[in-house]
C-alpha cells in the first residue's frame, strides 16, 4: 500500500514528539511504501532534514506557505465564473463551503495568487462579508487582514499532490485541507491522527498573540475551524491520543463514528538498565526537564518554581535537557532569569543522550501550557521516574490513571502556577518512598497501555482494514519491523 503522510512543520525538519511518532510509524511498516507531503514555512527549508529517511520512504514533496507567485506571464487577474464566485463567497462567509469547486478552480486555472487575492472577485466577496458582519471596522485593514488569512490557504490549494492509496494526515489545518484535496483528486482513503487538537492549539496561540487583536483573532480562529471541519468531514477515520481529545474532535464537528483513540507508545525496553546516579549526584535530588527551551514549555515558570523549591529544599538540582536554538531570545530571557534570581544548581545541558541521564534523575517535570500526550512522560514512566506536570492535554490521565488503578505516578499542577509546582517538587523531594512508588505505578501504566507494540498493532489493524476496503494486497511486516536506526529524537528535546 502506498501511504502518503501529510505533516505540517514537523517531520523530517525538526526534532519533536510528533516527528518522532511519524518516524517510528514509518519504520514500523517497512513493507509499505511511504510518501511524505510536508508543509513548511518557505523554500529556505527545502530538503533540510534532521532525520535520515527510512528506505521505505520513496518521495518527499514540499509545499511552502510563504512562497512566490509563479507563472511565466505577468500577474493574471483571472475572473471567476458565477459558480466559482459562489464557492469563494461560501468560503469567506463560512456557509456550506463548496470545496470541490474551489479545488477545481485552483487546479484548472493555474491561478496567480497575486491575481486572485488582489482581484475583483476576492474584493467583492470580502466586501460582502464586511457589509454583513463587520461594517464598523476600518475597511482597508479588514481587506488586508483577509488577504493575509487566505494567502496560506490558497497557497496550499495550488499544491500538486502525490498519488497514494491512503492519505494519513498528522493534523487537521492545512494538512487536513491537502488530505481532503488529494482524496478528491486521486481517490483513496483519508486518515487523520491528531496528537494535539490543531484547532484548539491555534486558538490558544491566537488568543495569546500580540500581532492580532479583537475581531481579527476571531476571524483567524474561524478560518481554522473551517479547515478542521473540512478535514473531519472528508476523513474516513480520525484518531486521537486520549478520550478528552476525542470529545473535543466531536465537539468540533467530527462524526463520532469516525473517531478512535490510539494512545502514544514507546519502546519501554530502551529505558531499562539505565546508568544510575554518579558521584556528582551524591546528596542531590535531581529534577529532569526534557524539553525545548520555548515559550510553550513555560520554562520561566519552571525556573521560578524551582527557585522557590530550592529555597525550601537545598538538595534540589534542575537539569534542563533540550535545545535552545529554536527561540534564542526566549532562551536568553531564561538564562537571564537564572542570573537575576541567583538560582543555584540549574544546568542547561542542550541536546544530550537521554538514556545517560534518565537514570540519574529522581523525578521529571513538564510545565507546558499546551500538550497532547507527551512522550516524555511515557519515557519517564519507562525509566520508573515520577512526573510533575501541568494539567494540559492528557497529562492528568497519564499521571493519575484513566484506565487502571495503579495509582498516581506523579503530581498534577495548574498551568503557570509557581507555588503548586514548587510544592510538588518539594513534596516529592522530601518523600523518597512516595517517589519510588509513583515511579513503579508509572512503569506499570506504560507497560499496560502505552508500549510501541500497542501503537503498532493498532495502526497495523487500521492500515490493513483500509487496504482491504480498497481490495489492496496487504503484506505482513517482519518480526523486526519496529527496529529503527538511532535518530535525533533518541536524544533529548523531542518534547
Amino acid at each position, binding site marked *: 500500500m502506498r501511504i502518503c503522510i501529510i505533516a505540517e512543520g514537523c517531520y523530517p525538519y525538526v526534532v519533536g514528539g510528533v516527528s518522532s511518532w511519524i518516524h517510528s510509524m514509518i519504520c514500523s511498516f517497512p513493507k509499505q511504501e511511504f510518501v511524505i507531503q510536508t508543509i513548511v514555512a518557505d523554500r529556505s527549508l527545502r530538503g533540510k532534514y534532521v532525520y535520515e529517511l527510512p528506505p521505505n520512504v520513496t518521495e518527499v514533496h514540499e*509545499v511552502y506557505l510563504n512562497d512566490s507567485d509563479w507563472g511565466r506571464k505577468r500577474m493574471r487577474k483571472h475572473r471567476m465564473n458565477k459558480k466559482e464566485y459562489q464557492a469563494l463567497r461560501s468560503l469567506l462567509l463560512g456557509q456550506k463551503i463548496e470545496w470541490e469547486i474551489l479545488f477545481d478552480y485552483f487546479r484548472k486555472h493555474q491561478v496567480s495568487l497575486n491575481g486572485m487575492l488582489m482581484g475583483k472577485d476576492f*474584493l467583492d466577496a470580502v*466586501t460582502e462579508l464586511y457589509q454583513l458582519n463587520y461594517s464598523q471596522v476600518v475597511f482597508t485593514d479588514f481587506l488586508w487582514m483577509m488577504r493575509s488569512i487566505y*494567502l496560506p490557504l490558497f497557497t496550499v490549494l495550488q499544491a500538486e499532490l502525490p498519488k497514494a492509496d491512503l492519505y494519513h494526515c498528522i493534523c487537521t489545518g492545512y494538512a487536513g485541507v491537502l488530505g481532503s484535496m488529494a482524496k478528491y483528486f486521486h481517490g483513496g482513503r483519508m486518515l487523520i491522527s491528531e496528537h494535539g487538537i490543531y484547532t484548539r492549539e491555534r486558538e490558544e496561540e491566537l488568543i495569546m498573540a500580540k500581532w492580532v487583536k479583537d475581531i481579527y483573532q476571531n476571524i483567524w480562529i474561524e478560518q481554522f475551524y473551517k479547515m478542521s471541519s473540512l478535514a473531519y468531514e472528508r476523513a474516513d477515520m480520525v484518531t486521537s491520543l486520549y478520550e478528552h481529545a476525542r470529545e473535543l474532535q466531536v465537539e468540533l464537528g467530527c462524526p463520532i463514528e469516525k473517531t478512535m483513540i490510539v494512545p502514544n507508545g514507546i519502546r519501554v525496553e530502551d529505558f531499562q538498565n539505565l546508568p544510575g546516579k554518579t558521584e556528582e549526584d551524591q546528596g542531590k535530588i535531581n529534577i529532569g526537564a526534557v524539553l525545548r527551551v520555548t515559550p510553550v514549555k513555560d520554562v520561566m515558570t519552571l525556573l521560578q518554581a524551582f527557585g522557590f523549591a530550592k529555597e525550601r529544599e537545598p538538595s534540589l538540582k534542575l537539569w534542563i535537557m533540550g535545545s535552545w536554538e529554536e527561540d534564542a531570545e526566549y532562551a536568553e530571557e531564561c538564562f537571564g532569569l537564572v542570573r537575576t534570581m541567583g538560582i543555584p544548581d540549574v544546568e542547561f545541558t542542550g541536546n544530550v543522550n537521554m538514556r545517560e541521564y534518565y537514570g540519574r534523575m529522581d523525578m521529571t517535570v513538564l510545565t507546558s501550557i499546551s500538550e497532547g500526550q507527551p512522550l516524555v512522560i511515557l519515557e519517564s514512566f519507562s525509566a520508573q521516574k515520577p512526573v510533575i506536570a501541568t494539567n494540559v492535554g492528557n497529562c492528568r490521565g497519564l499521571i493519575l490513571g484513566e484506565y487502571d488503578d495503579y495509582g498516581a505516578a506523579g503530581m498534577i499542577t495548574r498551568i503557570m502556577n509557581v507555588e503548586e509546582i514548587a510544592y510538588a517538587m518539594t513534596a516529592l523531594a522530601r518523600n523518597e518512598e512516595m517517589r519510588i512508588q509513583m515511579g513503579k505505578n508509572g512503569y506499570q501504566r506504560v507497560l499496560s497501555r502505552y508500549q510501541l507494540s500497542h501503537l503498532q498493532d493498532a495502526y497495523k489493524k487500521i492500515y490493513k482494514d483500509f487496504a482491504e476496503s480498497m481490495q489492496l494486497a496487504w503484506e505482513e511486516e517482519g518480526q523486526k519491523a519496529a527496529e529503527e536506526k538511532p535518530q535525533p529524537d533518541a536524544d533529548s528535546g523531542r518534547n
Partner: protein
Amino acid sequence: MAGVGVKLNRIFEKKSIAADLVGFVYSVVITIAPMIVIIANILLIGWKLGFNEEAYLTRELFSCTILYTFIFALLVVAPFNAVLSKYMQDAIYAERYEDILPCYYVGLLMTVVLGCLIGIPFCLWEHFVGGVEVYYVFTGFCAYISMILVFYSMVYLSICKDYERISIFFLIGMAGAFILAWVLKYRCGWNTDYSMLFALTSGFLLIGILEFAAVKRYFARNSNRFLPVLKYFVKWWPLVVTNFFYILGLYIHNFVFWTSESRMVVVKSFVCNQPYDMATCLAMFTNISATVIFITHVEMHFHEKYKIYSEAVIGGKKSDIESAKRRMFRQLGSELMNLMRVQFIISVVIYLLCIVVLPQFGFAGSVMQIYPCLAAGYFILFLMYAAILFLYYYNDLTGAILTTLSFCGVTFVCSLFSMQLTEIWYGMGVVLGSFTGWTVAYIRLRWVERHLDTHIFCQGMLLKQEFAPRPSGLVYRLQTEENKEYKKSGIIK
C-alpha cells in the same frame, strides 16, 4: 500653483462675467507671460532694427527658424517631462531633495540627445540642400538647443511654484537680446536678420543658464543616484506616451496643413502654412487660460474632496469611503462644468475681440476665416486636457494614453479631410480630434468612477512575482535505477 490658485479663486468666487475676465487676464499673465515677452521682444527688435525692410526670403527664413525652434523644442521636451515631474514630485514628497539634481541631469541629457537626433540631420539638410550658410544654421541650432534647455528647466521651477522668477528670467534674457541685437546691428555692422537671430539665441541661452542656476540653488545637494531616474521611465512609460501624443496632437494638424497647396517652402527645408499657423496661434491664446483656471480650481476644491476620500480609504469604514467617493465625483462633474462655463465666457469675449480688432492690424482674409473653427477646437482641446488631469489623479494611465492617442489620431485623419474643404472648415480636424479625445476621457472617467474600488483596492502585488513555472514540490525520490534521470536534472537530491 497654490498661491496662484488662492488669488484666482478670490476672483472667480464673485461669479460675474467681469470677474471671469479679470481671472482670465491674471491666468494668462501667469502662464504665458514668458511667451508674450519673447513675442513682444521679437516684434520690438524687428521694428527697431527695420526687419520689414529686409528681403522677403530673409524674413521668411528668420521667421521659420524661430517657429521651428519653438515647436520642436516643445515636442522634444514633452515626452520626458511628465515622468521627470513625477519623479521630482515623489522625491519632494519623500523629502529626498538630493535626488532632484541627478534627475535634472539625466533628463537634460536624454532631452538634448533626442533634440540633437532630430536637429542635426535637419541642419545638415538646411545647409547642404537649402544652401544656408553654416554660421546661420549653427546659430539656429544653438537657439533650438537653448530653447530646449529653457523649456526643460522651466518644469523644475514650475514645481517649485516660482512663476515670478521664471518671468523675471525671461525679461532679463529678452532685454539682453534686445541690447545685443542693437549693438550687433549698429555698432558691429551685422545684418539685421543675423543680428536678431544671434541676439535671440544669446537671450535664450541666458534664460536657460539663469534657470539652471536657480535649479542648482534650490537643490544644492546631489546624491548621484542616476539609475532610479531611468527605472522611473520603465515604470511610468505610459506618461511618456501620453505626453508625446498630446503635444504631437497639438501640432499634427499644422504638419498636415504644411503639406497643402497653400504651404510655403523656404530654402528647400522649412515648410509652413502662414495663415493656418497664425490662426492656430490665435486659437491657442484664446483658450489657454483654461489650463490655469482648471488647475487652480482643482487644487482648491477637488483636491480637498480627493483628500477626504483618500483619508477614508486609509482609515475609514466602507460607508465613509462610499460617501466620500460620491462627493468627490460630484465635485469632479461640477469642476468640468465650471471650467466649461468660465472658459466659454472668456473665449467668446476674446473671439469677438479678435474678430473686431485684429482685421485693423492686418490680420484678415484667410487667417480670420480659419480662426473660428480652430478656436472652437482648442476650446474642446483644453477641456480634454482637464479630463486627462483627472485621469492622472486616479492614476488611470491607460485612459490617458487612449485619450491622447485617439485625439492625435483623429486630429491627423480629420485634418487630412478638412484640408479638402473650404477655409472656414480647416479647423474641423482639431474640433473632431479634440471632441473624440474628450469623449474618450469622459467615458474613461465614468469607467473609473464605476471601477474605483477595484482601482484603489486591487493595485499592487502581495507576493514576489517569479516569471517561471512553479518548481516541482518533489524534493526527494528514493535513488533507484528508474529515477537517475531525476537526479541528473536536479529535481531530487
